[in-house]
């Protein structure tokens, strides 16, 4: 466990305050003061679990822009996978399932977890395990319709576009 840092507390505080304002949606002084107290307390307790690396990463406009572009890419992949899954369900449930080992070039913790969560959210693929072997990270992915068996080809089919996007945001 690491020490509580000022920058981490500040960025967690800003996030909590934004959520508070969005959820209460009133700008009276009393509500805002209560929000400041609650956000500050939770930021002090939580920030050291919440932020491990550079706390102000997304204040960099290039990274923020890349994150927004990534959201677009992700939505496109999501729609494609959803339509495919709906067709599969309404058309007789032909499946060819398997768990494949897919190597990845991602290094940072945030990048790894963002990519793993994106893969899990796409219907048709679920990340079962993230493992590190010989300095290289790899995912074990349950895939409902295997069109490729070897690791690299499967990786290109499952996360080709997503990995390019995440790498631009986090590495």
């Amino acid at each position, binding site marked *: 466990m690491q020490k509580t840092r000022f920058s981490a507390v500040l960025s967690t505080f800003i996030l909590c305050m934004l*959520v508070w304002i*969005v*959820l209460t*949606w009133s700008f009276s002084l009393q509500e805002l003061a209560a929000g400041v107290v609650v956000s500050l307390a939770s930021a002090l307790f939580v920030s050291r679990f919440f932020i491990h690396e550079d706390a102000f990463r997304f204040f960099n406009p290039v990274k923020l822009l890349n994150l927004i572009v990534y959201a677009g890419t992700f939505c496109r992949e*999501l*729609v494609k996978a*959803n339509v495919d*899954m*709906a067709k*599969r*369900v*309404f058309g007789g*449930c032909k*499946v*060819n*399932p*398997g*768990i*494949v*080992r897919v190597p990845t070039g991602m290094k940072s913790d945030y990048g790894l977890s963002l990519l*793993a*969560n*994106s893969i*899990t*959210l*796409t*219907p*048709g*693929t*679920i*990340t*079962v*395990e993230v*493992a590190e072997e010989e300095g290289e990270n790899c995912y*074990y992915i*349950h895939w*409902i319709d*295997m069109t490729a*068996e070897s690791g690299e080809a499967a990786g290109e089919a499952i996360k080709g576009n997503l990995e390019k996007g995440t790498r631009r945001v986090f590495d």
Partner: protein
Amino acid sequence: MIIVRFLIDVLIIAGGVFALAGALGVLKMPDTLCRMQASTCIPTLGTICVALGAILYAAFFKHSAADAVKIAVIALMIIVTNPIGSHVLARGAYTSAKREGTEMLLNVDDYGRDFHE
């Protein structure tokens, strides 16, 4: 205004169709992991389409920015929290099936080869 009304209807019906696909998939798929795959349709496009429709309704017909923003937050929370649960459930299903010796429908099983032999 009639165009927005039409768009809202289309979005909510599309969300319903995807949720139906997910629910039917849970019933029709052959084994646990495949069922989880089908049910991922419900929190992704099912939720997003219905939430988009509701946001448009709140913005154009109720004229309430607060409601629109709250619905957006609800959708975002579902999207962010869902994959963690899915991942843990999938791993739990796999591990318990291995321990009980249940036969799983897997044509390739790299995970079992690397971790459970």
